[in-house]
């Protein structure tokens, strides 16, 4: 019954997350947008779990675990970068260039 609206909200949130990732340069904000996308997906899982079984909710559980780990490592990386460069603005970080 709530499936359709929930999926719609999830899609909108996900798009906003992508939009944010593309729009911003601040690494931390981009990180938050990624979290937003993860949550949008979580919403989908939960919505579908109603009709497809409890496994959907379990996946949310795992996604949270991954998100926590990712946040910890990712933020640590940002910290390290900030120490090196003095900024978290991605425009000034091009360490990946070969």
């Amino acid at each position, binding site marked *: 019954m709530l499936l359709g609206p929930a999926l719609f909200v999830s899609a909108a949130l996900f798009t906003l997350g992508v939009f944010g990732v*593309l729009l911003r340069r601040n690494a931390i*904000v981009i990180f938050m947008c990624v979290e937003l996308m993860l949550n949008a997906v*979580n919403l989908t899982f939960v919505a579908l779990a109603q009709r497809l079984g409890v496994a959907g909710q379990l996946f949310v559980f795992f996604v949270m675990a991954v998100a926590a780990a990712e946040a910890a490592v990712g933020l*640590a990386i*940002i910290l390290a970068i900030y120490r090196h460069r003095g900024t978290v603005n991605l425009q000034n970080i091009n360490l990946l260039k070969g």
Partner: protein
Amino acid sequence: MSWTLIIFWAFAGLALVSALCCITRRNAVASALWLVVTLFSLAALFVLLDAQFIAVLQVLVYAGAIMVLFLFVIMLLNLGRQGPTDVKGPLGLGIAALLGGVLLFQLWILRHAAPPEAIQLPPGSMARLQQEQGLVGAIARPLFDTYLIPFEITSLLLLAALVGAVVLAKRKL
């Protein structure tokens, strides 16, 4: 229109608006706080979708732990003050809008790709399950049964993340 639906849309609207604010606020602290609002709203939506236990976790882990971590880092780096905007210029906006639009369009089309009726459970079966086994039990049973190994691996993942974060964040080992 039932009350459930009204509440749903109220929280959904709140989630979307706060998400929009989160990605547009120039101040990282403001963004983070708006994100907290979004996460709370989502927790409410989870309750409406028969996932009470997940909703609790959402508040505890996300709003409680992860967002605090974010705020800590922001403050540690002293990013809270007003600086020059990090929002990209018109070109970046255009690209973001274009790609976002395309994505939304694709998801719009994908809404028809719902799972076939044949494999769906009858309506209300989740609520019935929770009635029979309890809110936590309904999730805990498969977690420690079918998904035991992934669950244990998750612990390893978290341990690795812990070690990794310490290694990365520490100035000198």
